[in-house]
Structures are given as C-alpha cells and as structure tokens.
C-alpha cells in the first residue's frame, strides 16, 4: 500500500512539464540528427510551425498537388511504381529527410519528416509509403547502427530517389511475433549464408538493398537475431509474386526468399544479436512516418468529402447544410487534428532526444484509426459517388486500411502504450 507521499510523488512526476532546452543535444544513439531550427518551441508547434517547416510544407504540398494527385488514380488502377515521381522526390530532398548532409541527406528533423509525409501521402498514399520505407525503415537502421563505411555505401546512393531500399522483418509465420524469426543466418568462412522467407516486404521489387533480420543464435531466442544488409539482386535471393493488395497498389509487396544466399561478413549491421533491438528502435521512429501517412490519407478523404458536400444539392440545399453531414465533418476534422498533434508531439520529443515510444505508438494508433474512419465517412458523405472510382474517396478508403496493420498492428500499439504506462505509474 503506497503512502500518500509516495502517491503524491508519482503524480507530480507525471504532471510536471518536460524541461525544455533551446539548443543542444544529448548524444544518444538515436540522435544522429542535428536540429534544423535553433529552437523548436513545443508550444509554438501547437499554434504555428516554424518558418523552415512551413516552407517545407509548401514545397511538399505544391509538388503533391501538381505531380502526385493527378496521377494517384492511375498508379492505383495500373499498380504502377511511380518511378519518375520518386526521382523528383529525391531531387527535392524527400527520400533522405533526416539523413545528415555529409551522407547526401537533407539534414532535417522528425517534425519536418512528419510534415512532409503527410503532404506527400495526401497527394498519393503509394508515394507516401515508398518514401516512408526508404526514410525510416531502410535508412533508420543504417543511420543508427551502421559504420561510416556502411553508411557511405548503403545510404548515400539511396538519397537521390533513383534507388530505394526495403526492410525485411516479417515472415509468413510471424508478424507481430517478431522475436520468433525463423530465417537463419550462418557464418561460413568469409560470408554469412541466409536461409528463409520474408513476407509482406514493401518496395520488394524495386529496392536495390534490404535490411534483413535473421536468427544467428537460436539458443538466445530474440537476443540471437542479427541484422544484415543484403544487396539486390543477389545470388540466392529470389522474389515471390507481387501481392494483389486492397490499397497502396502502386507499391510492390512481395516475399523475399533466401536460399543459401551469401552475403559478405562486412554486411552485418551492428553486432551479433543486436537485430531485435535494431528492429524495435527502427519501428518506433517508423511509426511517426506511418502516422503521418495515415493523416495525409485522412486529410485527402476529408478534403474530398467537404468539397463534395458543399456542392451536392439535396432537399433544395447543399448537403453541407444538413446537421448529420456537419456532424461527420466535425468528427473527421476532430480526429485528424488530434492525431496530427499527437504525431507532432512524438516527432518533437524524438527531435529533443527524449523518450517518445509511447507517443509514437499513440500517434500511429490514433492516426490509422482516423484514416479508416475518415475514409469510411467520406464514402458515406459521397453516397453512390463514393462507391465508384470516378471519385477518389474509394481509393482513400482502400489505402487507409493498411495503416492499422503494418509497422505494428493497432493491437501491438495498445500493448506498447500499456507497457509504457505500467512502467510510468509503477503500480505493478
């Protein structure tokens, strides 16, 4: 039974606002990013973005409206990888947003990444996921755990938009249960031999490199998983069929099949047994990207719905005048704004080198459920028109669905949040 004073201590620790520093960073393995503004005031991010971020948002929005939005329907219908657009995104600096300039990146922060992801995804969810996987899942592990040589070899050529990478953790036998990786890596002389199958790999077809997680010491269970950089194409690596997905149909998703695939010893990322930790840390920051993608999709659905509602006449007035439609609009906007603020919070905390896991999970959870809600309501507002491909609402509905699944299902996010809370409250 905790004493009153112990309880008071606990509550005051939680309710005290975080100490804010204007400049400077604690050196932390995750902090391979320099702040791109000399002071990011948390309070001002709530009200207004810093100037640089506002300029970045404008560039991304202009590009998305001019070059992604008009083509998004085509990419979806034809299942085509937007190669030209990804190249332009590279030229704009979007494919390596948080990578330091010395490796060819843009050197911006996670708040910038969140903003850019939202605007790009609002134009085309496929372009968003391609950008997210390259930035967070492929470059994340390399930035955090790669040697200088590995960074030069595997990051720099992938910053221009001409080449993309991918991340191979999930397997046919395990998604959420990442610790049960059955793909194995055996050291043999001057190379590692990989055997096994990875499933659901985004950018599977177009990527020219993959971060692959394989068990190198089965006895150590999840502490026996290591991470490897695998070039593509490479002998012993074949691709499964392209999955026929419900949404984000322009991005390729497939199995990576390793059959006695040999890779040099130098391609071990981090040290033996570090794989699980690398994967979990990477997914933490990837959540900010996916949360932003979900918000972009939700925003696109919302924009479509409110525009339509202002024009569609029924009962002698635009349907936007009807209260039940207004309720939907308000609910959609509320959820979008809430998810966005949570995402910004997670991004700013990460940029400040503070613990951000719980907020990243909250952001991803909130944003993905917002995306599916908005996709659903947008179709409802459009009625019959929402059900046909003449309007983008049905595509937003389909694109939104995956955000609740990949990079940690909504269920996993809830477990992450709860685990953090239990630790914070110290009640167990």
């Amino acid at each position: 039974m905790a004493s009153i004073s112990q309880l008071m201590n606990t509550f005051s620790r939680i309710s005290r606002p975080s100490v804010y520093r204007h400049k400077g960073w604690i050196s932390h393995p995750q902090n391979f990013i320099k702040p791109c503004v000399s002071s990011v005031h948390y309070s001002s991010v709530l009200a207004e973005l810093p100037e640089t971020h506002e300029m970045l948002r404008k560039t991304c929005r202009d590009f998305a409206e001019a070059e992604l939005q008009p083509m998004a329907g085509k990419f979806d219908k034809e299942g085509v990888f937007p190669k030209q657009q990804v190249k332009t995104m590279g030229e704009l600096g979007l494919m390596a947003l948080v990578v330091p300039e010395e490796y060819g990146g843009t050197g911006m922060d996670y708040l910038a990444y969140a903003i850019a992801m939202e605007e790009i995804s609002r134009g085309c969810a496929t372009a968003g996921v391609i950008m997210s996987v390259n930035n967070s899942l492929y470059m994340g592990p390399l930035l955090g755990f790669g040697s200088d040589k590995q960074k030069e070899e595997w990051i720099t050529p992938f910053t221009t938009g001409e080449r993309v990478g991918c991340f191979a953790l999930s397997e046919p036998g395990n998604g959420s249960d990442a610790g049960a990786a059955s793909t194995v890596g055996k050291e043999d002389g001057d190379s590692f031999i990989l055997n096994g199958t990875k499933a659901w790999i985004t950018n599977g077809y177009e990527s020219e490199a993959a971060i692959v997680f394989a068990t190198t010491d089965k006895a150590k269970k999840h502490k026996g998983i290591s991470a490897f950089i695998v070039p593509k194409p490479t002998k012993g690596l074949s691709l499964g069929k392209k999955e026929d997905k419900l949404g984000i149909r322009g991005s390729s998703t497939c199995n990576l099949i390793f059959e006695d695939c040999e890779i040099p010893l130098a391609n071990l990322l981090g040290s033996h047994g570090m794989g699980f930790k690398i994967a979990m840390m990477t997914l933490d920051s990837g959540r900010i990207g996916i949360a932003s993608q979900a918000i972009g999709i939700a925003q696109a659905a919302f924009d479509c719905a409110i525009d339509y509602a202002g024009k569609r006449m029924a009962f002698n007035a635009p349907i936007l005048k009807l209260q039940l439609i207004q309720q939907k609009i308000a609910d959609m906007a509320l959820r979008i704004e809430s998810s966005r603020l949570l995402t910004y919070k997670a991004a700013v905390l990460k940029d400040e080198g503070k613990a951000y896991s719980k907020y990243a999970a909250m952001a991803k959870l909130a944003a993905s459920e917002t995306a599916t809600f908005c996709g659903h309501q947008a179709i409802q507002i459009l009625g019959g028109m929402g059900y046909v491909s003449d309007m983008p609402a049905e595509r937003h509905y389909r694109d939104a669905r995956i955000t609740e699944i990949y990079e940690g299902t909504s269920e996993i996010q809830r477990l992450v949040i709860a685990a953090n809370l239990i630790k914070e409250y110290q009640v167990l």
Partner: protein
Amino acid sequence: MSLKVLVGCKRVIDYAVKIRVRPDKLGVVTDGIKHSMNPFDEIAIEEAVRLKEKNIVKEVIAVSCGPTQAQETIRTALAMGADRGIHVEVPAKEMEKLEPLHVSKILAKLAEKEQAELVIVGKQAIDDDTNATAQMTAGILNWPQATFASKIEKKDDFLEVIREIDGGLETIKVKLPAVVSADLRLNEPRYATLPNIMKAKKKKIEKMKPADLGVDTTPHFEVIEVTDPPAREAGIKVEDVDTLLLKLKEVGRI
C-alpha cells in the same frame, strides 16, 4: 560578369484563397488568411536565378516591402536561389495603403544603392492588379523597360526581350541597365528543394525603412469602397443563332 539583379517580390493573399470583403468595406479580410509570394514575382525570381546559372548575372538580390511576415517571402526567394535579401519594413496598416509609386521609388533607390543593372519584377500583383511598378521604376531611373516579358536573352550589352502584347508577340532590344516585368509564360518556377530551404537560412536579409531610402510613403489616393462583384445570374438557353441575335437585341446588347 558583374551584373547585379534586383528582384521585387510581394507578399500577397494566396491565389487559392476565397477572398472576403471586410465588414467596413474598405478592403478584404487579411487576418489569419494564407499569404504567399505573388505568382508573377516567383516567375521573376526564377528568371533571375536562371540568368545567374547561365553566368549572365553575378548576384540576385530579392527585395520585399511589408511587415515582418514579408521575410517569409524573401526566404522563399532565397530558397529558390537568390543570394541575399532586403526587407523594407512597412507596418501592416501602412502596407494596405502602399502604392506602386512608393514601391517604384524604393526599388529605384535600391537599384542605385546596390548598383544593380537589371531590375526584374512580376508584371502585376494579384491583389491590386495595378501593373504599374515596373513602368514607374523605369521612369524614375530613366532606364528602358521591357514589360510582359515571355523570353529574355542577353546579347552583348543589351537584352533581347519577347513581349506578350495584344496583337501577339513583339521582340525588342533594351540596353542595360533596364527594368523588366515578368509575364506568365516566361518560365515555370522551380520548387524550393529542401536542401535549398536549409541553405536559405544562412543567407543574409538586410532590414531598412522607406525613410532610410528617403522615400515618403504618404498615400496619394484613398479607397472609398470595396464591394463584391454582382452575383452571377442564371443564363438562358436558345435554340439557334437567330434566336440568339433576337435575345441580344432584346436586352440591348446589340
């Protein structure tokens, strides 16, 4: 090449915003409304940067008159490739009444101060549509002007400019120094890439007031009323050309 070019860029209400007249009917609502660089000025900046890339021009200086927020416009110009900026501070209330004549005097003084040999501005601002600044600046400096430019080429010590005029296209030669105003088809402005946005933060923006340049910003005219255009009325459909002519005669149009 030692040519310096001065480019004027104005912060205006974004073109996509639905404008609303203020309750006092003396202007439009600007509070909390999205603003951005005048599209024709973006074209002007783009042209100046392209001239620099072709080594025709050595330095691009972006100028904007306005309140503190005008610096955002200058920063965008820097992110597009301008080398440095000059912010002529004009408080928001004064900005409402700032006229092309004032801006022309400011640009003329700056052109002299900076020893610029070329001044490029957008042909008109999308808020007041006066289409006067370039012409007046040339007049004050007594420089030749090439307005509504859709193509600029440097040849020896003059510019060959193709102008868009009512009758089509006109090609003229203008000796330097000169004032040029950019028209829509001059070029397509580049995106401010993220690396350039980051670089722009290090570029200098000099601040000054109109008084520092000896320019008096007392207004010469007064806006009496601003109203919405009349609401669009429904039209009528006619069966054939004869009926059309009859109807037009009925309403007194022909």
